[in-house]
């Protein structure tokens, strides 16, 4: 490893402070005691910003979760802290109207975070309570999850933007970037790929233009924006790096995971924060799972030696040991046992589901070998009804990697596809997957030409919006195979890959595949732009951009700010990708900060495509 001294990461706690102060200010806008209703998925983010006692200090009487049920609050002031979703606003309208009908007079305030949408106000207006409710915005865009991860906590960004073509979150993305820029900027280089990235970039530029500019020492100099739909393959793969695996199995929520009784080996579940503060976790989070046991047992031995030190101590030494070391050791001990428990539990689950077979199939798909076997594996998977999400995931992976080349098989699968088995509503899921380009169905020759001519017509039309329409009607081509060759994403398989000493980012997938998203970032940083990658960007449907040298920014490539790179994933990113970037950073002397709309994984990605009917 050619280790250069890595630059220091900027301090993100200021973001939390900023958000907290603003929230307190907003709460004080409604003086007196009030009940606070919090949208369910804002609970954990809010917890990171302000705890209950802080809220109580600012006259919040009771806290409720928004549950779409009638309210039983007795307070005469209600405050709603919600996302700008029509459904939630409608519920608020119901609450207000119910109070009105009962002749109760209360004060209502809705705090939208991170911003309010016109559509929400329209709903208030339509329901006739626009005048009864005061609204506000809590510009809580950036939640620092860890020292190098910042989350927007907007899982719906992915579906709304990429599936429904609803661009309302674009401005949110721009504002988030603007906020980051105003604290840690100015950026001197901005790269990006994807339509959404470009729009976010433009939205950000506009906001920069509107606001005032202060010359500051940049803490972060380079930004890379990437759309999730540039690379669907990576998030669809099973994760085998520890943190990713924990996320796949236990689901990390807002940097926090709940380990069930099988992990804690007691009858209680324990919630654990997973971040760099956890010393044990920090050492294993980026490791391939096969190494984790080794690490943990080594750690256990070390711990034992540390404990053993107290033998043969005199009283004085013992006193210092107890006061200084013991607490840390105890803490470490607790964490260690938790992580060992988690590893064991994961091990059990993974062998039960023929995890090995699954991984083999995935790797074959990525490498493009033995497709026939893979297909029969998938078929069997479906037939055995193992898990719908898993089946869909494999199907998508097949479709993406094979890109219709093996259409006879996918057709085969299609007919075998059991709408029957999972219910007819998955017709809609199917339609969604197709629209997103995750699942490509071969079109009969004739329709294809019709599509192409339609496409040709639309390409002439400059309006970008029309292209989306074209894409939604014409399934997107994925070109994975060609990209894989061009960027050599799949390392040669004849050599043995030592996962203990990884030589490239492929280690996060057991040496089988370098994530496309991370490879793109690596290449662009290396080349200082997109030159030489023309063919790649063509295969990725273009929309790439590189802007260097904004005013007053430090352009020396060696400066620390230039080596701290903000990567913004629009539509979510996986822990594996973060691990890969950390690896890349160590190799090249960079530090990556990941700014994502949400942490995702294969299951979340597929679940976002389901149409659930309440």
């Amino acid at each position, binding site marked *: 490893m050619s280790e250069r001294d890595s630059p220091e990461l900027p301090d993100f706690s200021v973001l939390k402070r900023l958000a907290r102060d603003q929230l307190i200010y907003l709460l004080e806008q409604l003086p007196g005691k009030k009940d606070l209703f919090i949208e369910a998925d804002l609970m954990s983010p809010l917890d990171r910003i302000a705890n209950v006692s802080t809220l109580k200090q600012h006259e919040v009487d009771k806290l409720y979760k928004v549950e779409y049920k009638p309210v039983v609050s007795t307070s005469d002031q209600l405050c709603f802290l919600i996302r700008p979703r029509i459904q939630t606003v409608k519920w608020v309208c119901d609450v207000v109207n119910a109070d009105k009908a009962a002749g109760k007079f209360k004060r209502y305030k809705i705090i939208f975070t991170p911003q309010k949408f016109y559509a929400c106000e329209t709903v208030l207006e339509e329901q006739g309570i626009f005048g009864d409710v005061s609204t506000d915005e809590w510009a809580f865009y950036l939640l620092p999850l860890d020292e190098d991860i910042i989350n927007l906590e907007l899982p719906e960004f992915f579906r709304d933007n990429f599936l429904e073509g609803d661009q309302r979150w674009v401005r949110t993305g721009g504002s988030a970037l603007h906020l980051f820029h105003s604290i840690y900027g100015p950026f001197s280089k901005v790269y990006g790929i994807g339509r959404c990235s470009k729009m976010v970039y433009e939205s950000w530029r506009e906001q920069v233009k509107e606001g005032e500019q202060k010359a500051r020492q940049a803490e972060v100099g380079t930004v890379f924006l990437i759309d999730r739909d540039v690379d669907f393959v990576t998030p669809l793969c099973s994760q085998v790096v520890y943190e990713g695996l924990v996320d796949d199995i236990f689901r990390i929520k807002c940097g926090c995971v709940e380990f069930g009784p099988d992990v804690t080996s007691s009858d209680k579940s324990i919630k654990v924060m997973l971040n760099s503060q956890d010393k044990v976790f920090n050492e294993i989070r980026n490791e391939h799972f096969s190494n984790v046991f080794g690490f943990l047992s080594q750690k256990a031995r070390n711990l034992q030696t540390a404990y053993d030190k107290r033998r043969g101590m005199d009283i004085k030494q013992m006193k210092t040991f107890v006061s200084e070391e013991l607490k840390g050791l105890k803490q470490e001990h607790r964490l260690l046992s938790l992580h060992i428990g988690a590893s064991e539990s994961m091990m059990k689950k993974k062998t039960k589901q023929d995890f090995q077979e699954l991984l083999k199939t995935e790797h074959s798909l990525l490498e493009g070998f033995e497709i026939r076997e893979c297909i029969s594996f998938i078929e069997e998977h479906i037939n055995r009804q193992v898990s719908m999400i898993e089946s869909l995931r494999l199907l998508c992976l097949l479709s993406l990697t094979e890109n219709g080349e093996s259409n006879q098989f996918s057709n085969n699968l299609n007919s075998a596809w059991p709408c029957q088995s999972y219910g007819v509503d998955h017709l809609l899921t199917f339609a969604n997957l197709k629209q997103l380009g995750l699942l490509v169905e071969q079109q009969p020759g004739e329709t294809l030409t019709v599509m192409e001519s339609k496409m040709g017509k639309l390409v002439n039309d400059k309006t970008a*919006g029309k292209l989306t329409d074209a894409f939604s009607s014409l399934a997107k081509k994925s070109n994975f195979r060609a990209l894989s060759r061009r960027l050599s994403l799949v390392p040669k398989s004849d050599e043995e890959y030592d996962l203990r000493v990884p030589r490239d980012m492929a280690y996060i997938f057991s040496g089988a595949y370098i994530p496309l998203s991370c490879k793109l970032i690596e290449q662009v940083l290396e080349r200082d732009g997109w030159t030489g990658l023309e063919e790649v960007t063509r295969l990725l449907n273009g929309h790439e951009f590189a802007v260097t040298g904004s005013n007053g920014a430090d352009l020396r490539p060696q400066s620390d700010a230039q080596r701290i790179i903000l990567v913004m994933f629009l539509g979510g990113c996986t822990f594996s990708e973060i691990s890969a970037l950390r690896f890349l950073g160590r190799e090249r002397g960079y530090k990556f900060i990941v700014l994502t709309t949400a942490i995702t994984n294969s299951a979340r990605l597929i679940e976002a495509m389901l149409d659930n009917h309440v």
Partner: protein
Amino acid sequence: MAFITANWNPLGEAFYRKTELYEMCWNLRDGLRDCLVAAAPYGGPIALLREPHRRSPSSRPQLEIYSASGNSLASFPWKSGPVVQLGWTVNDELLCIQEDGTVLIYDLFGSFKRHFSMGQEVVQSQVLEAKVFHSPYGTGVAIVTGSSRFTLATNIDDLKLRRLPEVPGLQGAPSCWAVLTQDRQTKVLLANGADLFILDNTSCTAVSPPGLSPQVSSIVHMSVSFSYKYLALFTDTGHLWTGSAHLQVSQSALCLSSMWGCRRPKSQQPSVVLMWDRLLLVAGVCNDIIQYPHRPCVCVGELDGVRVVSSSRQELLQEVPLVCQEIFKIASMAPGALLLEAHREYEKCSQKADEYLREIKEQSMLGEAVRQCVEAAGHEYDIQTQKTLLRAASFGKCFLTDFSPDSFVATCRELRVLNAVREAGVGLPLTHSQFKQMTVQVLIDRLVYRQFYPLAIEICRYLKTPDYQGVSRVLKHWASCKVQQKDLSDEAIARAVCLKVGDSAGVSYSHIAAKAYECGRTELAIKLLDYEARSGEQVPLLLKMKRSQLALSKAVESGDTDLVYTVVTYLKNEMNRGDFFMTLRNQPVALSLYRQFCKLQEQDTLKDLYNQDDDHQELANYYVTASYREKRLESRLSVLQSAVDEYNKAKNEFAAKATEDEMRLLRFQRKLDDEKGAGLLGLSLQATMEALLALGLHKQAEQLYRDFRVPDKRYWWLKLKSLAEKEEWEELEKFSKSKKSPIGYLPFVEVCMKRHNKHEAKKYVSKVPPEQKVKAHLAVGDGAVLARCSASDRLLIDKLNRARATATKK
């Protein structure tokens, strides 16, 4: 320096001077007689209405507007009703108050802007007298009607009429009255004979000023100072009373023999200017007076003096500022005066200069001397005097080490600006104190109102006003004015505007375009909007101009979805449904936004949308979604049938088939539920079969398997698992023998082992084909058998063991 003090007149302690401002450029045939005249303070314009009472249509009165220097700005015959009073607003707009209470507003160039009324009841009772006044709230209008009632409007831009209470005993108009602004309240002070009243919003209070002579039978004139601080009353007995406007402190009571008019008290040490037909008289507190013989004229009260406008010239009558007095007073020994003298000697190359300097320095008053010269220069109107004073100051400054040059530089700059605007061509005779009071911003505005754009821009640049307040603002006004030029083509104007304005910060093209639209030039407005960089700004105006399509595409371009929503909502209300949908169809971004909204708010609209687009696929999907909302089976089936039809139209046979199957399944489930109470309705096919098998209804499961042509493999897996789950081993064996297993026999082994039934598992091992045999044995854990494996199998075993090893690692 005798010539500077030549026009000074002493009044008590103070001196008064009358400086000529302009030889008026106007050519008034009949002088100012028979005219209604209004001149605005701060060197404002002058409006004349000749013979306002002439009413015959053949000869209408002429309304003329002049700059302060007498340049004609506008002149037109007055065609509306009889005018009672003229007045100027703070924005240099002309107010013409008519007898019927209508107030017409014109701009400097005589173009009509708008009008408002002082109330309905005035139409009958008529306006007797009116006054225009200025207060911190803006420009106000007060009238007294024929029924002796007062009505006030404190700010004409935010019109709120207030009818003041009745005054006891008042018939017709009061003998005299004035408007006061005190304690953030506007009041009317009026005299009826010898009685004084103060009228405010709620009450009418009688007051009596202390020290007013008891013989007075009528107060004939009253006047309030510019700052509303002092008041002067003139009585029929020829007494002048001056005092504070609160009527508490009497300052003096002066006896004058004859009377004609009384005008405008003024600054610092209060004094009153009284005007008779041929006499101008300044009366001070000290019972002293100055008399000027004078031709008929008009007085305009200013912050620090009175402008006296006659038909031939305009003069400024003011108290000589203290610092000027000190410097120029004969035999003054003030440091400033000495410095001036020193400088004069210095220019003569006389050594006396040193003596004077020494004298100042000995008193260590040089700083003070410089300061005095700088300040005095500001107050002087004559450019030569300004120069002399500034040179002296500059000379004195050389002998000082730590003197801040700021005030000197600022004064130089400001004087340069003031001299420029005092030019007769511009005609803004501002004194330095007026300029300070009015601020640069307002001065720029005034220049802009007069359309002196280049001068305004020069001044902005010279004074280094920030672009946002300076140049950009001027350009904005210029462009707004430019678009109103009717003789130029749209193209030419758009080009000219773009050329000048470019992309100056703070100039909004949408604002200019809005102006163009106001003048009815829609095409020009659209052209101008094209230059607007922020598409978001273009949208509201486009909507106003009913260019909804364009507005929509601009909104989409801006990337601001809220804006798109705004337009969509607007269109929804404005257009009929068909057109609305057609519009959306051309804007996919807007369409998907609207769809998202409809999905949650207006399901039916969504259907219409798809219908309109002939999007059968989406329509079918919509029906499928909708079917889940239907509670009753029949309606659910009928909705699903619609979905099938649409899928067929969309040529999506697979989906159509799947939906049909679903319908069949629903019917089947319903039947079974009715018969056996199995609770199957709504389950998927797989789940149904699973449930059936669990209930032991093998026949029905079999029927489904055949009816729906479930793939053999899947059915076998299902049944296999279900049997093993219930540990029906016999049944399982029977099943395994029913025909050749499509999934092979390895799964049989595996499910048995899952239930830890080695015995059963072994039954199937023999059936497993050779290539999977090893796996089967491994699964059963039968080492003995493995030993007997062939060589090829052995290889496989090795491989497997390796795989296992890695598996445990992972």
